[in-house]
């Protein structure tokens, strides 16, 4: 029956996405209910090297989880041109501005290699987190971990330890 076939297809699709999530440190070992919620908000896309995935100042509509490939977070500095602040490697996220008002990207995100991305719909995820506190309780610590890791790294970069 079409409905059953659709459910099966949906289930297979969900299982595949859950497996993809589990292969990333960001998504691994979340409770099954949380993973199902996330998968319901996810789309998967591939992009060739050189693709701009997000532009600084523009609305960030999706949080991206890098499955493979490398993306750079860049900012334009007068007289220096585009400076790469950080690269995001498989397992890590970009576009988390989609969770933080005013939901605008703080850097320009460009694929350095062909990338495979699992993208979570920003407005949908915000609504889910507001409505489902169990989901929020397990997801926010991951987001916080990703941010804290970047903050620590940024501090070390600011120290410019290798300058001397």
């Amino acid at each position, binding site marked *: 029956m079409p409905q059953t076939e659709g459910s099966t297809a949906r289930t297979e699709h969900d299982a595949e996405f859950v497996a993809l999530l589990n292969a990333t440190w960001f998504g691994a070992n979340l409770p099954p209910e949380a993973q199902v919620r996330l998968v319901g908000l996810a789309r998967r896309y591939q992009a060739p090297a050189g693709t701009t995935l997000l532009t600084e100042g523009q609305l960030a509509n999706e949080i991206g989880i890098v499955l493979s490939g490398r993306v750079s977070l860049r900012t334009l500095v007068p007289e220096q041109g585009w400076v790469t602040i950080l690269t995001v490697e498989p397992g890590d996220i970009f576009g988390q501005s989609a969770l933080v008002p005013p939901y605008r990207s703080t850097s320009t995100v460009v694929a350095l290699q062909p990338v495979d991305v699992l993208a979570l719909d920003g407005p949908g995820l915000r609504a889910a987190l507001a409505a489902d506190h169990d989901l929020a309780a397990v997801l926010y610590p991951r987001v916080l971990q990703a941010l804290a890791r970047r903050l620590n*790294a940024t501090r070390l*970069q600011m120290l410019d330890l290798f300058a*001397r």
Partner: protein
Amino acid sequence: MTSSAVTTVTTEPRRGTGFLPRAEFQHLIDLLGEDGRTVIGPTVADGAIVYGEVRAVSDLPVGMGAEQSPGRYRLVDHHDERYFAYAVGPTSWKRFVFPPTLDLAESHRDEHGHVSFGPVHHEIPKLAFLGVRACELAALGIEDRVLLGGPYTDEDFRKRREHALIVAVQCAEPGGTCFCTSMGTGPGVRGGHDVLLVELADGFLVSSGSEEGAGIVARLGLSAATEDQLVEGSDQLVAARDRIGDPVATAGLHDRLLAKLDSPRWAEIADRCLACTNCTAVCPTCFCTSVSQRSDLDGRTAVTERRWDFCFTKGFSAVALGGNFRPRVQDRYRQWLTHKFATWIDQFGTSGCVGCGRCITWCPVGIDVREELNLIAPPPVLGTEAQVAAHAPRTSVFHVDAVRPETHDTVTLALSTPDGMDWSRLHGEFVMVSVPAIGSIPISISRRLPTGMELTVRAVGPASTFVTGLERGAEVGLSAPLGHGWPVEAAHDHDVVIVGGGMGFPPLRPIVDEILAHRASFGEVHIYHGARTPSDLLYKEELAAWASRGDLDVGVTVDRADTTWLGRVGVVTQLFDHARWDGSKAIAFVCGPERMIQATVSTLAARGITQDRIFISMERHMECGVGLCGHCQVGPFFVCKDGPVFSLAQLGDVFGREGI
């Protein structure tokens, strides 16, 4: 002591004590001056009793003494006939056996670029030290341990010590800042002298402490001292001891002091301390030195000059790549006090203080170490012993066989020597690279070669800039490899994690070489290199070759990049903080700026690598390379001699502590 075994202080005294009437003292001075000896003893000069040449009794401070208290010294006239009724003044015998400045070596570079290195030969004067106190004999004994106790030795010091005859004088007039009783060094003389004098009202008790001293005493032709005279002498000594008391509780001081590294008192002292270096300049045991080059105008010929240096100066602990590990006065005061009374014992088996009180008297603001020790480490057990000797490393001439630019300011030099020695088999982590007229710098070995080595050098100062500018065929001087390197053999059958940041990567390259030579002896191998920008990355081709082997995990990252860089951007810890390897089986080797090491160590620890399996190379100001100049001290260690590679477990809480 004129015997060859200068560290021996237990020579059996000759039996019998003679009496030398005061009127015949000139006879003793004359005897001491025989055999070409210059007699050095107390004289009055510049408002103090200082050591200078003594030819006649009238040169001595007849009837003079000095009042001493914290920050105060005043000559006083006792209106009597005594010559030695004073406590020690600002000079110590150190300057005669360990001169304030000394030419160590000469180097030349001829018009063809050939370089040569040679020692400077000194005429060592024959001296007789007249009036050496018990505390000062103890100070000479401590210097013997430091400078002759090995593994490296100061041969100039050895000769000067051997050429000095020592006439000790029993202390009868302690000063207001003395505490030899607490330090266990006085006031009674217990050995280390050739002749011992005890000054009485009308003359001197005279005994000998060595063969040579016995010869001199015999030539004085003395009558035996009477019972009353001997009693008068021992009464004086007892009175002196009573006057000093026991002002510092030294039992257990080592542990008590090291437990107080975080005392707020350090900052309070620093509010008063001027960091003027007076205390270290007058100290009879401080041995720290710096070496500089004095060259002729065309830079062809240079003399390497060593001079006393002081841990209170800000530049003392500054490192080549910039930065300073003891920037605050409180850091330097803590370094000085904890070294004298604690870590000195760890290093040399003896306290570094003899309780002479000079540092108290000559402190312009009157900081009193007796008081500070009791305040910082209020009161229980003493130290041990140490010795043995060897010889300092010689400089060998090496040829530059190849120069490979690594970055805009960094090159790798391949160097060899025709001396036939298999340099690849010599242990040691770094070499001192010497350039005539420019100086010596410590450089880590970045590859071992059968006839020499590779050194990767960044131009940061005059010497390193000169070295990076050398061309094929040029010559430089190199010491034998120094220090303790990476314990690569400890990593056999383990996984290995190598993390190198910036110029911290070259010292790690020999580990990779060793692993590749015996690949099957190691488990998984992870190599991580971080640099400032892509153009600052070192060994780019080699990194690529290692990565393509398939049996090495190689990660490279930079702190910032432009759009042409397609590699990783981020700090080095991000290369492995989410890696999948298991740290419980791994040994880590880490080198880079200290703050990077700290961040790396935290991440490695979080991945399950315990402190005894994390080895780091400490960056400190290394100047002599053999543990004799004092610059690179960290807690109980000299980084050049005891390191530069340490396990975190070995360093304990010394690692990452501010101002140490």
